[in-house]
């Protein structure tokens, strides 16, 4: 399992822990989040994110999740 897949697996298992970051971008390694930021550019510029090349996800808000379900 590479780092990216490990970060994705962590995010699936611990998804409810990520809800508090709604509207933000989160970088996740195999041990959990390593960085949170309001924009993807800020997140990608962080030293640990550049070094580890982790799994990246944006946590949608409740309204955004519902907007997709209503499509």
């Amino acid at each position, binding site marked *: 399992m590479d780092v990216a897949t490990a970060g994705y697996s962590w995010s699936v298992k611990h998804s409810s822990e990520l809800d508090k970051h709604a509207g933000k971008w989160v970088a996740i390694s195999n041990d959990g989040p390593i960085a949170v930021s309001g924009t993807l550019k800020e997140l990608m510029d962080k030293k640990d994110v550049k070094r580890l090349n982790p799994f*990246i996800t944006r946590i949608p808000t409740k309204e955004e999740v519902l907007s997709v379900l209503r499509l």
Partner: protein
Amino acid sequence: MTADFEYKCIQGEKLPLAPIKLTHLGRTILTEALIDSGSALSIVHGEIGEQLGLVHRGELVKISGAGGKETVLHMYELDNELAGRNFKSKFGLPMKRGDVPYSILGRDGIFENFEVKFRQRESKFALSDY
């Protein structure tokens, strides 16, 4: 080969989000995208597109959702790594940032490369090679 995934619970809703590596001109992002059989096209989130160096110059396409909402996309061909396979497919970059809250894997590209099986009762989905 078949890759199995669990639905991801976000804000109390379960969604089929698959891990995908997107590459364009040497820039790579490891992220996830919603598997959406209702979408003809795949769409990359605007901020991810910007990080990949997409610059709103691709072929223009206008799409409408089932709810009637229109979105204008610039189309690009990206390198993908999904479920252990590498392939190229087209993605739309929304003209307006925030138009699409997720990256979306639609029928063109993804559903042409994989047999997609949703196991709703188990909250799982599987991607198999054609």
